[in-house]
């Protein structure tokens, strides 16, 4: 039997001008505490790889005992240059980029971008396409809030919330997969409408979901709302009042948890939201608990909107009828999956040279968008999702900037964390619900 003459789990340490830096791997707190005994102040680098930081978010926390005296967020670990890349693809291809930003709310990214392009073009999207957009967005909002419940619950130690949240979210993603072909990164909403009409069976699947989800949702109340541990972990934690929200540009459920019923679906309706009956849930607690309550009730409101959207679905085109803009695809299900309809290919290859030229030009070049700039904003699950699109009159975006609610809301993390306990910093970041794909783009 061999004996170790050194502790294999000891924290690695090195000297810097700022003092001793320890690399902690777990089970090695003794060496850190021994080293920090003469100094009450400790700087903890949390993340970017950490199960409680909601993705690759790095928090630099300065601690005095267990109290956070300074919290800084460091981001950029997921920066993929989406805005730059879009300048080298045509306007339609831009959809496949924006959908990957906030990966929990892809339909919202696509819709915000397409609304901006449509505003630049000055086209009106057919009614059915708008209804399908609303339908998909609200399904997506439910899925996104469920992931928030799941990950937020996990970060505070409620693992059953995690498994249940992801279970229900998968039901929603199944429906979105039926409609768009993909669970995530759909690229379904396109400038001028949506990629394809609802496939057969989709409406029934949504109706089925509308039966199942209301049965499952009270489970979250049983699990969390009445749970004293959950209440203690979230009530009066991560407080940010209305004034603070506005100063920091915070929108969405966080703003509504501070008492202001500011929801772009109501105040600046788009996609026909003015025709739907729903409430904007608000709370006045302005803490993590209030945000939890707001999000949970928003799921119920979204279900109401989905139901109304199904009733509003009237037959009609799903892409703008202007052939100079509308994507020429005639999709059909083939042996190798969804693709160009063979009948359509036969027609344009065999009988109409003009149709072939038109198809080729529109797909390879894309359509031109009159020069100018617009800003269009929608209410994503996290707040105001705005797209500032600039066109120089060409087939590619000259510049697309996305005002990501996660990016802006994350600025509130410092205000929520400082002065609180370290454990509450986790609750604070969870209550902001930042999605790093959106933050870093």
């Amino acid at each position: 039997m061999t004996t170790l003459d050194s502790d294999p789990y000891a924290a690695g340490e090195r000297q810097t001008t700022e003092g001793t830096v320890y690399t902690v791997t777990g089970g090695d707190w003794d060496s850190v505490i021994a080293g920090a005994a003469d100094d009450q102040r400790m700087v903890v680098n949390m993340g970017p790889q950490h199960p409680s930081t909601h993705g690759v978010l790095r928090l630099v926390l300065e601690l005095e005992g267990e109290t956070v005296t300074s919290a800084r967020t460091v981001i950029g670990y997921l920066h993929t240059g989406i805005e730059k890349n879009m300048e080298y693809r045509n306007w339609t291809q831009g959809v496949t980029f924006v959908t990957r930003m906030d990966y929990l709310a892809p339909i919202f990214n696509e819709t915000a971008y397409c609304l901006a392009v449509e505003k630049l073009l000055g086209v009106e999207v057919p009614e059915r396409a708008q209804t399908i957009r609303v339908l998909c967005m609200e399904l997506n909002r439910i899925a996104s809030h469920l992931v928030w419940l799941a990950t937020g619950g996990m970060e505070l130690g409620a693992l059953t919330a995690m498994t249940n949240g992801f279970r229900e979210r998968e039901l929603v993603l199944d429906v979105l997969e039926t409609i768009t072909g993909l669970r995530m990164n759909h690229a379904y909403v396109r400038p001028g409408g949506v990629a394809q009409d609802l496939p057969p069976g989709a409406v029934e699947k949504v109706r089925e979901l509308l039966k199942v989800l209301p049965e499952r949702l009270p489970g979250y109340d049983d699990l969390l709302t009445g749970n004293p541990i959950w209440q203690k972990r979230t009530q009066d934690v991560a407080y940010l009042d209305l004034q603070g929200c506005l100063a920091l540009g915070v929108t969405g459920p966080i703003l509504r948890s501070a008492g202001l019923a500011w929801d772009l679906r109501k105040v600046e309706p788009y996609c026909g939201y003015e025709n739907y009956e729903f409430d904007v849930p608000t709370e006045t607690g302005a803490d993590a608990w209030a945000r939890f309550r707001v999000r949970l009730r928003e799921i119920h409101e979204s279900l109401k909107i989905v139901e109304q959207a199904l009733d509003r679905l009237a037959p009609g085109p799903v892409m703008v009828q202007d052939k100079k803009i509308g994507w020429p695809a005639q999709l059909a299900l083939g042996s190798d999956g969804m693709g160009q309809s063979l009948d359509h290919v036969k027609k344009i290859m065999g009988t109409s040279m003009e149709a072939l030229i038109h198809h080729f030009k529109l797909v390879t070049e894309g359509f031109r968008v009159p020069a100018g700039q617009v800003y269009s904003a929608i209410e994503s699950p996290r707040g105001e999702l705005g797209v500032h699109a600039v066109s120089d009159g060409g087939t590619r975006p000259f510049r697309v900037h996305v005002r990501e609610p996660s990016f802006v809301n994350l600025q509130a993390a410092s205000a929520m964390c400082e002065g609180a306990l370290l454990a509450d910093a986790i609750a604070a970041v969870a209550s902001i619900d930042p999605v790093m794909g959106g933050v870093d783009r």
Partner: protein
Amino acid sequence: MSEGTVTPSGEADPTGAASTGGTHLTPSAVTPAEAVATSGQDLFGAVFGSDTSGFGGLVPRADAALGTPKPYGGWFDEATDALEAAWPGFGDHVLRVVVDRGELTIHVRPQAVREVAQVLRDDPDLRFELLSSVSGVDYPAQEARLHAVYHFTSLTYRRRLRVEAAVTVEDPHLPSVTSVYPTADFQEREAYDMFGIVFDGHPALTRILMPDDWDGHPQRKDYPLGGIPVEYKGASIPPPDERRAYA
């Protein structure tokens, strides 16, 4: 083609906002580069008049680089009048007002950005409580090529307004609005990171998305996208920035 006073969808514009064809400003206010950047072409690139394909109802717009003459229509007059009344620097610092696609843009001199933000936030007739977005745009053909674009939102009046200021690459300075809108913190850092616009007075203007030691500002138009050719079954497809572009 006549001046673009028709919205492409053919519907009546409730604000009358599409009339961008005014020339009430002195020609010096418009740089030739801006005019080039916004000159109209039809959908398939033909010059005016030669497109026989019907154009699908799209109407080329007049040059957005020109200011819009009063009245702007809708609440735009009310808001600009309120701004003019509340802000003594209006005459000196506002270069032009553009109303396009139902949106109001006020182009100001860069040094006036903080001042105008303060008035927009505090004046009871304006009340733009929220700074929604700060973004940069690079117009390489212009002399003052780096534009900082601010989108303000009034929760009281439910209005949106855009303020735009342009600086040169040699002197990319303009005052930070963080003291008025703390939310501009991250957004100004992003504009600095991506475009190299320097916001004077920002508490910690450092890179935010790119690594701290990165060289250059990636979203400037003269910064290459990079990339390598994609090979598939013996064929090679050039990287995206070298592929054919249709202007």
